[in-house]
């Protein structure tokens, strides 16, 4: 089996690593680079626990070969907080008790941040549709929706104050 030297920029840090042809992005991130935010759930593109951003768009990292992501920008849940300050989506999940066991949470947050980047004021239906590819086995969906709404409100208030 062939090995490939690739470069991944994860949360702004460039990493050079060697991956096997068959190695999935989620395994390269977790096992080689120790970004354990993306979780391995179903490994079949269903549950969304492994969701990261690839060049700014949410993707299930269990269904991308690491070699395919060569030279691309990856953001994991570890990259959301800046300078020790939570991202509004993290605040939202904390405020609204948006997690129980927490396994789906990193994926939920990564999909939700793409939604909020494209649609800063989503209604409940839009939130539920956007998160269709993220499953919560604790069935805590209502609080997850509330968390995303909470984040949208915080981001709107921050924009009104002229923050970043």
């Amino acid at each position: 089996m062939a090995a490939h030297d690739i470069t991944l920029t994860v949360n702004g840090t460039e990493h050079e690593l060697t991956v096997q042809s068959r190695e999935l992005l989620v395994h390269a991130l977790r096992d080689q680079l120790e970004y354990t935010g993306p979780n391995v759930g179903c490994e079949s593109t269903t549950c969304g626990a492994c969701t990261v951003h690839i060049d700014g768009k949410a993707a299930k990292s269990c269904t991308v070969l690491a070699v395919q992501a060569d030279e691309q920008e990856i953001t994991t849940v570890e990259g959301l907080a800046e300078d020790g300050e939570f991202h509004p989506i993290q605040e939202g999940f904390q405020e609204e008790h948006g997690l129980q066991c927490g396994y789906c949470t990193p994926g939920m947050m990564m999909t939700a941040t793409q939604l909020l980047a494209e649609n800063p004021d989503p209604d409940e239906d839009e939130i539920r549709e956007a998160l269709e590819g993220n499953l919560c086995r604790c069935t805590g969906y209502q609080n997850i929706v509330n968390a995303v709404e909470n984040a949208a409100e915080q981001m709107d208030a921050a924009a009104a104050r002229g923050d970043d």
Partner: protein
Amino acid sequence: MKNGLAKPDVVVDIGHIESMRGIEKNGDATSIGALTTYAEIDDDEELWADATVLAEAASEIGDTQVRNRGTIGGNLAHSDPASDLPGAAIASDLTLVVEGPDGERRIDADEFFVAMYMTDLAEDELLTRIEVPRGDGATSGAYVKKPSPSSGYALVGVAAQLQVDDGTVTAARIGANGVMDHAVRLEPVEDAIEGERLSDDAISAAAERAADDLEEAMMMDDLQASAEFRSHLLETYTKRALERAAERADATVTA
């Protein structure tokens, strides 16, 4: 590969061939590179106007993450009978442009899908782009589906494209996925609605013909839906697709 459907010796990543990506409007047709994602198609307002049925089908596929990664070329070349695009490919009358050692070959959508996971593509050919005829303002379309409650794939999906002139259907193309082992064109429905004034009765009469050319014994039949139920769904969703296309044509639907 994960499901064991394919065990290739070599995998070539074509994902970075930029000339196979993107949406271009050229006169009478819109050219869509095979590597264009569902999300890029769903986000293209002109495509929603010109080829509504194709854009709507792309918007129904999978979920946010899948639409960010999945491509129109990969979808059509895969010929999954339960996927949402093949019926819309037939209804929107698109042409698949493939390249092989002997150069370029053009294939009509309704001749492309051969069987489950089988197309007219040869082993040494690559689907590079598709061409969609641009609507002339009188074109309207719709894709509706009954999703599987667990996977979201189409148990049955019907794609309808209508040309409507002053309330009368001048041309119709109807495609369906999920019913047979590959996407099929529903010509009896087309024949029944063409030339008719759009009305509830005309739509119902046309939808009743949905399964006329299809053998129920050959229909998809599994734990989620029997062939008999799929046949019933096909008529119902054909009616809904025609109704939605008719509404979009801004036609007066009279009882």
